[in-house]
C-alpha cells in the first residue's frame, strides 16, 4: 500500500516528537488547557511513562505467550486431549470477563501498583493466544502431517519442525489481539497506581484539563496503532 509508505514514517516521527519533545505541541494544545493551567504534562517525563507502559505490556505478553502456547501444545497432544473441551470452555468464559473488571478484581487480591496490572494483563492475554494456538495446531493440513510421519520424524520433531512453524501465523494473530488489549488495559492500570501513559489522561480528567487528555490519548492511540500495524506486517511476512 502506497499510503502506508508515507503515513507510517510520519506517524512514527509524530509519536517520537510527542513523547520526546512535548513542548513543541504547546501552541496546538494551549487552547484546550484551562486558563493559566499547565499545557504540557510535567509531573513525570512522558518518555519514562512510555517505557514503563511498554515494559508492562511486553512482560505480560511474553509470559502469556509462553504459557498459552505451552498449554495449547499440551491439550493438542494425546496425553492432554481430555482437557481440550474444558480448556475451550475456560477460554470462552474467560473472554467474557471484562478486562477492566479483571484489573479491579486483582486489586483486592494483590494490592495497588504494577503487580495487579501485570497479573490482569497476563491472565487476560492468555486467552486469545491460547485460542489461536489451539486452532492453529488443530487445523494443520493432514497431507503435511502424514508426510512428516512418513519421513520418520518423532512426535517432538514433528512439533518443532512442522507443527509450530506452520501454526505460527495463526499464533501471532492471537499475540497481536492480546497485545492490543494489553496496551489498552495497561492505560487503565494507572487508576491502580501502575506507572503507565494512562496517568496523563487520568490527570487530565481529574483536573478538567483537556490538553492532558488529548496528549495522553493521542500518544497511547499512536502507540497501539503502530504496534498493531507492525505485528500485522510481521504476520504477512511469515505467512507469505
Amino acid at each position: 500500500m502506497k499510503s502506508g509508505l508515507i503515513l507510517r514514517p510520519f506517524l512514527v516521527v509524530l509519536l517520537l516528537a510527542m513523547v520526546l519533545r512535548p513542548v513543541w505541541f504547546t501552541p496546538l494544545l494551549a487552547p484546550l488547557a484551562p486558563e493559566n493551567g499547565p499545557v504540557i504534562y510535567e509531573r513525570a517525563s512522558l518518555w519514562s511513562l512510555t517505557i514503563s507502559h511498554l515494559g508492562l505490556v511486553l512482560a505480560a505478553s511474553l509470559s502469556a505467550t509462553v504459557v498459552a502456547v505451552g498449554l495449547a501444545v499440551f491439550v493438542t497432544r494425546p496425553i492432554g486431549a481430555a482437557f481440550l473441551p474444558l480448556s475451550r470452555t475456560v477460554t470462552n468464559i474467560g473472554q467474557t470477563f471484562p478486562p477492566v473488571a479483571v484489573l479491579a478484581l486483582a486489586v483486592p487480591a494483590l494490592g495497588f501498583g504494577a503487580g495487579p496490572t501485570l497479573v490482569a494483563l497476563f491472565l487476560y492475554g492468555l486467552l486469545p493466544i491460547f485460542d489461536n494456538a489451539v486452532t492453529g495446531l488443530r487445523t494443520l493440513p493432514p497431507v503435511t502431517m502424514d508426510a512428516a510421519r512418513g519421513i520418520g520424524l518423532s512426535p517432538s520433531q514433528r512439533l518443532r519442525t512442522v507443527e509450530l512453524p506452520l501454526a505460527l501465523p495463526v499464533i501471532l494473530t492471537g499475540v497481536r489481539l492480546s497485545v492490543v488489549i494489553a496496551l489498552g488495559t495497561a492505560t487503565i492500570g494507572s487508576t491502580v497506581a501502575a506507572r503507565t501513559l494512562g496517568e496523563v489522561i487520568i490527570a487530565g480528567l481529574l483536573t478538567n484539563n483537556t490538553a492532558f487528555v488529548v496528549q495522553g490519548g493521542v500518544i497511547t492511540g499512536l502507540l497501539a496503532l503502530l504496534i498493531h500495524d507492525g505485528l500485522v506486517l510481521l504476520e504477512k511476512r511469515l505467512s507469505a
Partner: protein
Amino acid sequence: MRAVSPPGLVFAIVGGALLCVPFMTLAANRIVAGHGVMVWALGYWPALMGMIAALGAGLSPRPTLRLFAGALGLACITAQVSQGADLLLADAGDYARTSPAAGFWGLLAVFSLLIADALTQLHPRPLLRAGLLIVALAALAVVFWSGLLGDLSIAQEYVSRARQFWTALAQHLQLALGSLAVAVVIGFPLGVLCHRRGGLRRAMLPMLSFLQTIPSLAMFGIMIPLLAWVATTVPGAREIGIAGIGFAPAFVALVLYSLLPVVGNTVAGLDAVPPATSDAARGMGLSATQQLWQVELPLGLPVLLTGVRIVMVQNIGLAVIAGLIGGGGFGSFVFQGLNQTATDLILLGALPTVLLALVAAVLMDILVDLARPVSETAR
C-alpha cells in the same frame, strides 16, 4: 470409558488445596485489611462435608453426576459463607465486616468450572440451556432476596447505596445496549453496502479496525473535547444532553467500538450465502431487496448475531470505563472503590459487570444456535 474424569481429578486436587486457605476474612471496619479464617474454624460441618463430597463426585466420568456435584458444591459454599458470617459477627464489634476470602472465591471458580465442563459434555439443546440459565438466575435471586448473605460486607455496602446500585445498573445497560442498538442501525446498512461494493469495503473495514485499536481510555478521553465542541457549536445539541463530560462521550465511544464487529459480521454473514442460492433467488425473479430480506438475511443471521454477541459482551465491559468520565454505570462504583481502597465497593461494581457479561454471552449463544438452520442444530 475411563474410571476417573481427568479434569475432575484436577478439580479435586485444586479444590482440596483451596480448603486449606482462608475461607473468610473478618475485619474491624470496611477499610482495614482483615485476618483470614479457615473453613474448619467456622465449625459448620454439614457444608464442609458437602464440599468434600462434591469434589469426590466430580471425579466421576458421568457428566450428569458431575453437574449435580457442582451444584451441590455451590450450595454448600453459599451455606458455609452464610453460617460463617453469623458466627464471626456474633462476637465482633459494631463496625466489623466479614467477607468471603480466597478459599471461597477459588471454590466458587472450581465448582462453576465443574458445572461448565459437565455442560460442555452434555451439550444441551438451546431451549434447555435457556431453562438452565433461568434456573441459575432464579437461584441467585433467591439467595440474595432471602438475606442469606445479608451479613456479608458487600451486602452491607449494597444496602447503604441500594438506590445508586439500581441507577447504575440502568445506566450501564443504557450505555452498553443503547450503543449496541445505534451501532446496529448504522452498521447493518453499512455492512450491506460493503457487501455489494468492494471499493467501499476496502476503505471501510481497515478504518473501523483502526478505531478498534485505540485504547479505550484514550478513545473516551478524545471524545470529551470533540463533544464539548459539538455542544458549543451545534445549536440544540446541548438541549438533548450532549456535553463534553458524562454520558454522551461514553456513548459515542462505545458506538465507534461496536461498528467493526457489526459491519464486519454483516459482510461475513452475507458473503457466506452460497452463490448457487443467490443465483436461484435471482432466477426466481426476486429483486435485490427481496433477495436481501428473504434469502441472504435469514441465511447470514447466525454470523450476524455472533457480531451482536461480540459487541454486547465487549460493551458491557467497556461501559465500566464510563465511570472515569462521569458517565455513570457500574464503573463509578469500581473507580470510587479504587480511590477509597474499599474492596467491597470495587466488588459491588465489578461482580455485577461480570455477571451481566456472562448472562449476555450465554443468552446470545442460545440465540445464535436457534438462528442456525435446523439440520445443523440437530446434530
